[in-house]
């Protein structure tokens, strides 16, 4: 049963290690876009061609092509950057982008609306700040995320360090990114094979994207079970002795196609810190060789494992490594959201976790962070919940930072629901969006907060996540309340995802309009307030009282659906 390879496989093969016709395309200033094939290739360089969907209806009659703009996504292992880097990115956003920075669910920053003519300047600016966008998208290992927990200095440093090593090891070896965006000169004539090769990936890279996360319990901010490969730090006597290894997580699915589904990863064993990089390489090569290259909807590692069986996969990994993993060790997660506000680190430094609604930084907020970045000497840590930690504030610096936060009205925490809310980008830039998300969730949360307050739940933490389509970029299937776009103003409502990110949720109601969402949830909030057991989470309550069935595994996500 050999199906033909997908179109993307041919594009990759012919690309001369990710070069294609991008350089020529950049010179054509009459269109703001690139050739279709090259649009696939720029993803490997962290760059997406998009168009402003708000403007779509008017463009043709004004004799204008779609309002093309590029999204560029940084690679920031573990989400750690410096104040000067923050300032440099902010400037690029103002001068070359749409004036905003978008902190993502995977600890990076996205620029939106960069014109083709500004792309090289933007990427050069990023490079000058000693950052890059290499492999931030595309069929390769993406930015490696790590628990954003600087409070525990040692564990945090260990996780970020591993993220850097993993990311570095799995970076494509092609020099295409430097050639095209930085040097800007060499256009290798067609046929001239570049000298370098890709020892891990090979010329066609992976069948699909590949994601790695490193969790440090009890925090599961990275949602370790949502990733192709995960490492859960195991600590003994305050020291990281190794990691439990997880494989086969993923969120994306397609409406109406039950053989696509979100899947929580399986824990397959334990490894020591120095084994981690090699394990990652071997998992990547198995996926490279076994992954489905004909149907991109079934190409992620989670489907490879479903198809081949977990045992076969684990055995193959042992074969390629030359030995098996040690048995998994116990761990316990407490939450997937961020603990906001000031906290003291175990190294004497302080940290402020700043809530950033949907990760969007612009206008007054950007100005406030600019002021802080100018005085702050420590790090800026992007969290997997789209928030920002002003990390490593020295004792002498704290008063100044606190004053600036107060001055700009950033010191007051939001309510329990909003603090745990995430929305993906969706409209107007995301080409795949079926419904609003980032622009819609804040208002919906306001309405839901009123219902919660009416039941005395204003300060209760409940995770709520919205996406504009079922791809799951804000990991909505791991939220207590999940909202997934179906069409303009219409969402599926999912309930029962665990607060600590260990259990997927379940479809509760189909195709709800915003007012119906509020009307559906309000009575549930009031019974929850009245009938919950001490410390019982909203999702656990929903399962216990039979509102929805628990999802025990990804391949059972579509089962026991009452809606």
């Amino acid at each position, binding site marked *: 049963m050999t199906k033909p390879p997908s179109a993307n496989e041919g594009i990759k093969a012919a690309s001369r290690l990710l070069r294609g016709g991008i350089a020529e395309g950049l010179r054509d*200033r*009459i269109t*703001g876009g690139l050739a279709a094939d090259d649009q696939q290739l720029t993803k490997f360089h962290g760059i997406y061609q998009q168009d402003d969907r708000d403007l779509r209806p008017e463009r043709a009659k*004004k*004799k*204008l*092509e779609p*309002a093309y703009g590029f999204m560029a996504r940084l690679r920031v292992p573990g989400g750690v950057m410096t104040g000067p880097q923050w300032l440099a990115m902010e400037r690029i956003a103002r001068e070359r982008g749409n004036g905003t920075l978008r902190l993502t669910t995977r600890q990076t920053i996205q620029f939106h609306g960069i*014109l083709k003519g*500004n792309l090289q300047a933007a990427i050069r600016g990023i490079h000058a700040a000693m950052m890059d966008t290499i492999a931030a998208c595309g069929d390769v290992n993406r930015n490696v995320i790590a628990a954003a927990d600087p409070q525990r200095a040692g564990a945090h440093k260990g996780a970020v360090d591993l993220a850097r090593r993993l990311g570095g090891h799995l970076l494509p070896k092609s020099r295409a990114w430097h050639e095209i965006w930085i040097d800007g000169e060499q256009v290798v004539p067609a046929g001239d094979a570049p000298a370098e090769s890709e020892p891990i990936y090979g010329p066609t890279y992976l069948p699909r994207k590949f994601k790695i996360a490193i969790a440090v319990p009890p925090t599961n901010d990275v949602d370790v079970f949502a990733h192709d490969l995960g490492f859960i730090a195991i600590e003994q006597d305050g020291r990281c002795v190794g990691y439990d290894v997880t494989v086969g997580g993923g969120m994306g699915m397609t409406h109406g196609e039950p053989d696509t589904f979100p899947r929580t990863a399986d824990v397959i064993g334990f490894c020591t810190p120095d084994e981690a990089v090699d394990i990652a390489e071997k998992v990547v090569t198995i996926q490279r060789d076994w992954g489905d290259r004909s149907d991109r909807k079934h190409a992620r590692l989670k489907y490879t494992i479903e198809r081949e069986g977990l045992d076969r996969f684990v055995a193959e990994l042992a074969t390629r490594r030359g030995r098996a993993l040690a048995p998994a060790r116990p761990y316990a997660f407490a939450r997937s959201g961020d603990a906001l506000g000031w906290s003291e680190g175990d190294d004497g430094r302080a940290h402020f976790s700043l809530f950033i609604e949907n990760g969007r930084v612009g206008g007054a907020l950007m100005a406030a962070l600019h002021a802080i970045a100018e005085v702050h000497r420590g790090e800026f840590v992007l969290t997997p919940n789209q928030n920002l930690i002003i990390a490593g504030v020295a004792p002498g610096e704290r008063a100044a930072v606190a004053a600036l936060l107060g001055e700009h009205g950033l010191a007051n925490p939001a309510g329990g629901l909003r603090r745990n809310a995430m929305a993906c980008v969706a409209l107007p830039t995301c080409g795949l969006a079926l419904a609003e998300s980032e622009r819609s969730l804040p208002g919906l949360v306001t309405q839901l907060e009123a219902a919660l307050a009416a039941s005395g739940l204003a300060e209760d933490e409940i995770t709520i996540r919205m996406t504009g389509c079922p791809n799951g970029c804000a990991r909505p299937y791991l939220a207590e309340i999940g909202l997934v776009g179906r069409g303009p103003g219409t969402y599926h409502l999912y309930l029962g995802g665990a607060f600590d990110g260990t259990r997927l949720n379940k479809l509760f109601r189909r195709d709800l309009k915003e007012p119906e969402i509020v009307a559906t949830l309000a009575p549930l909030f009031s019974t929850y307030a009245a009938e919950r057991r001490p410390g019982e989470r909203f999702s656990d309550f929903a399962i216990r009282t039979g509102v929805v069935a628990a999802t025990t595994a990804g391949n059972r996500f579509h089962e026991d659906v009452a809606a």
Partner: protein
Amino acid sequence: MASSQATAMIPFAEEQLAPLRSLLADSSAEQRTWLSGYIAGFQAANAPAAAAAPPAAKPALTVLYATESGNSEALAASAKREAGKLGFAARVLDMADASLDGLAKAGNLLVIASTWGEGDPPQRAEAFFAALMASDAPPLAGLRYAVLALGDRAYAKFCETGRRIDTRLAELGATRLAPVEECDLDFEVPARAWIGTTLRELGAETPASVIHVDFMRPPATEAAAHSRARPFAAEIAELVNLNSSRSTVRNFHIALSLAGSGLAYEPGDAIGVLPTNDPALVDDVLRAAGLDHDDALRAALATRHDITTLTQPQISAYAALVGDAKLAAIGADPLQAAAFRAERQFIDLLDAAPHKLAAEQLAGLLRPLAPRLYSVASSRKLVDETAELLVAEVAWEAHGRARRGVASGEIARRRVGETLPAYVQANRHFRLPDEAERPVLMIGPGTGVAPFRAFMQEQEALGQKRRSWLFFGARQFTHDFLYQLDWQEWLRAGLLTRMDVAFSRDQPEKQYVQDRMWEQRRDLFAWLEEGAVLYVCGDAAAMAKDVHAMLARIVADQSGRDGEAYLRDLVQAGRYKRDVY
């Protein structure tokens, strides 16, 4: 007796004579003189060809004009007709084609010249003008002349070109027949009157001979077709703001139906539009003058009077009318007047010293409303009896009032299906080269791109793949790339060879077409050397000057030659054409 004797010799029947007698009885001396010429002319026109040969002694007259938008040219043509009637052997000469040497022998010279830029001569007249002003200009003793200057009192250097020509000709020894006549935008009536008087004075020494009235030809086609004086009510077939809804500016693509008008234009021509003032502003002006009850005046202000432009003479006239000393002082001092006028309009003058006026007083202060020209952006070969225009909305805010350009503001208010009074203003200087092989270099940022769209449509209709290179610029790529899909299509089809664009506000550093030209200087100069015709269209105040300076720099950089001299030669060779406003 005499009468009966005379009767005997008369070849008319008595009934035929009666009307003639009664006509003569009521006639003035002047009319009778004219009639004698008329009859002589009739005779000549009906005589056999040989007999119609013009008398040898006709005095020679040259009507020399310098024009940008065609007003002087039209006047020159009518001066020639008039002169012909008065018995001159008249010829019309464009200053663009004139040489100073030939001029000395002209005998009688009538100059009609407009002023452009900030007191500059029309571009095509620059070379002649410079030669005339040069210290080595030849003596012109023996030349008898008079100058008609066209201008606009809204500009500080009113009628500068005409004035300077007048002074200079006298300096060179020519005889001034009449003082220079300075006309404002309402030049039609005074200019024609002056032409008549001046020609008659000029001809006074030569015996009044035959009046050449053309009896045989049908009335001139010009009279039948629609013209500035008789515009056609063109229906708006399409009206689209080409800028995105997020743009900071608006440029309207407007298609006017010329169906049934007989109007025909060529790419390079312009369409003249007779605008109507904003009714709200008309009301404001009436109210400010205490005349809001006067509906007849309201109608006149809407279409006949310029109620926006503010000139220095208007300040003085109004100050005198209302007895305002402060305004009088401003009006008397060019510097103060300039500062006062900077961002003000006529309404601000009324507001500065509110006063009730009589209808005639208000009307007397105002100049006539002038038509506005718009380059055609289409080819009839492709769009048939339609003319497409590209109109930039003029809008700004000053002294607490939102201001709009009269014509562009009106177009922005209009709807499809309504009509605009329009006519064709030909510009035979701005045409595609006749040789299909000759490359064209087109520089047209903003609305300056309009005629180049007409050129491309023409090429498309003719299936002509001439080498062509367009430079375009605007503020923002995404929001202001006028006709982007059209250019893409022509590039794809190979009809447009090359296009370079500059968008000034897309990046921190401002970029303009001249920057793109500099980047491409090697190729650009090569095109010029290969014989390309260079066209520049659009903003005169900044763009045309900057582009010109850049062209000179490129020539110098690429060839080591004197850039200005090279460009002057190009102009003379008809290969550097500008249509700037």
